[in-house]
């Protein structure tokens, strides 16, 4: 076991995959200088043919990644969710649609590492959390790691996956520390976390709390406080939203009878909306109280540190929501 920050765990995943497979290359803006940390030492180690600094042309270079993947490469592209709007042409019309449209001829092993720098006084242009959109649009796998171990294992699985994956990396979790097993401690020698399998972060009996990215951290601290009041919550991290592990959540709700979904995306048409709709459709008779959504307020992200924190799910909002289900 070693104790790593999430960003270090992701960096390790990329190193291991680049080491293992020459077809993997890393591309993005200023990735050689590693300005966001995840590409640390890649350039020194793998050189200019495998670590590409791009011009400021996200649509162009994401499209280039797509094209290169069709004929033998396995690109890993670093960007921010907020810079993906300018690249939606290639993300939607090509990356997401191409395989199906061509009857399966295309293989698109592209991984996009999309950083979400919300909650850091970056204002509306830099704080997007756009995974609900990519849940609605078929064709891409939507990966939402929380803990360092999962971040490493899911990133490795994404790079090895033959379908397009977007790994949404929560900037609030970059410094989150956690135990990550050494490869020598793992049965087959490497950490690969499968897609579509939720993690039960904490078992509990009174209410199921599903958390997306940073929400799991808030849910854990809420849990401690709730415990003191004799309330036991079960925390579930879906880890991937496409594919989605419905069963683990439905089973948990069968046990607890209650559901709170915590999601830093804007609340309307959020991942939380989807999860609540699915559980009510399929687990209705197990629900003993209305499910509660704790998601971001339906407004853009304001700059002011006096306003921004009001937007997001917090420990307090989770506690309140859980109690509401128990009224």
């Amino acid at each position, binding site marked *: 076991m070693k104790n790593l920050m999430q960003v270090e765990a992701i960096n390790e995943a990329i190193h291991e995959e680049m080491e293992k497979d020459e077809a993997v*290359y890393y591309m993005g803006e200023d990735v050689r200088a590693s300005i966001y940390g995840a590409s640390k030492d890649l350039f020194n180690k793998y050189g200019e*043919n*495998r670590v590409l600094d*791009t*011009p400021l*042309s996200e*649509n*162009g*270079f*994401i*499209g*280039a*990644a*797509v*094209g*290169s*993947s*069709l*004929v*033998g*490469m396995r690109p890993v592209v670093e960007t921010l969710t907020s810079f993906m709007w300018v690249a939606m*042409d*290639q993300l939607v*019309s*090509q990356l997401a649609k*191409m*395989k*199906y*449209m*061509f*009857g*399966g*001829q*295309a*293989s698109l092993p592209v991984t996009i590492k999309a950083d979400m720098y919300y909650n850091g006084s970056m204002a509306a242009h830099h704080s997007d959390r756009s995974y609900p959109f990519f*849940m609605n649009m*078929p*064709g891409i*796998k939507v990966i939402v790691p929380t803990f360092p171990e999962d971040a490493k294992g899911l990133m490795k699985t994404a790079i090895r*996956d*033959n*379908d397009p994956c977007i790994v949404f990396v929560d900037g609030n979790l970059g410094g989150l520390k956690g135990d990550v097993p050494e490869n020598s401690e793992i049965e087959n020698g490497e950490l690969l976390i499968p*897609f*579509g399998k939720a993690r039960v972060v904490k078992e509990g009996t009174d209410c199921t709390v599903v958390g997306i990215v940073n929400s799991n951290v808030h849910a854990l601290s809420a849990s401690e406080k709730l415990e003191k009041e004799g309330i036991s919550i079960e925390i579930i991290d879906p880890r991937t*939203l*496409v*594919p*989605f*592990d*419905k069963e683990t959540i439905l089973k948990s709700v069968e046990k607890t009878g209650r559901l709170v979904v915590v999601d830093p995306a804007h609340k309307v048409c959020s991942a939380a909306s*989807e*999860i609540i709709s*699915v559980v009510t459709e399929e687990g209705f008779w197990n629900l003993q109280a209305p499910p509660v959504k704790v998601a971001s307020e339906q407004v853009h992200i304001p700059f002011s540190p006096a306003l921004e924190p009001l937007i997001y799910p917090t420990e307090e909002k989770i506690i309140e929501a859980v109690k509401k289900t128990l009224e």
Partner: protein
Amino acid sequence: MIPREKHILMLQRMMRIRFFENKLIECQKAGEIVGALHTYTGEEGVAVGACVALNDDDYIAGNHRSHGHPIAKGGDINKAMAEIFGKEDGYCKGKGGSMHLADFSIGILGESGIVASSVPVATGAALTSKLQKKDFVSLVFFGDGASNQGACHESMNLAALWKLPVIFVCENNQFAVTTSYKDSVSVDHVSDRASAYGIPGVLVDGQDVVAMYEATEQAVIRARSGEGPTLIEGLTYRYEDHSLGLANVRRDGNYRTDEELNDWLNRDPIEIHKKFLLSQKFATKEEIDKMENDEIIAVDEALEFARKSPYPDAKQLFDDLYTDPINFA
């Protein structure tokens, strides 16, 4: 010097496209084909000249006007026709249709319904060639209208910077639907824009398949030797209106005159090349007639093939979305 076989091949492919399209126009009018249908008649010289200058393992990508490119590259017209009919034996098992023909096995990376959207993709294929130190090139077709999309700018800059072996072929058929390129491109020629990237820009008579071949050949040599991309503009004309699937677009607003159309009909790329072959004694009238006849038969057979092919079964609906089926929420 272009070998004789290539000259013959170019005539053959142009005729194949012409007959293929004309057959589709018939079927469309008879109500046998659904959806949009953008035909390539009149423009055959551009795709054929460009593709015949490529090797089989070079790549192409294209756009909504999508039948000419794969046929020019040597695609299977049975599969193409079946795809346009939405049948199981089509290139994409019926999932793509007219605007999305593709044959990865012979370097056809696919047609794209969103204009200019293939341009970055083709640039990326060229990036693989460079990174893997291969020597294939990649060529992409896009229209005069599409040239105004940001995707073209970004790709040309990237390709020029990284000296990627990609060839940008603008098919300037004078219009985007009803809009003249003079009202949409702010310089005289799309190829004039090459200077903005420090790459060669070549203006070619697209009705002269030999000229297209030669320009592409130069670009291929440049690309394979690591010198980077070339922008080629082929001046051409589409005989039909924009899309047969949208009847209301046809001639609406009198966007072009009969005289203009006639002028271009008098410079038909197939007729020009036939004359060239005869004048150079590369083929006799009889040989050409025979080729023509063979192509007519091949297209008839393709139609038979398409008609006979079954529709895809409902249970194929979810196939091909991901490598393996997955669970959604």
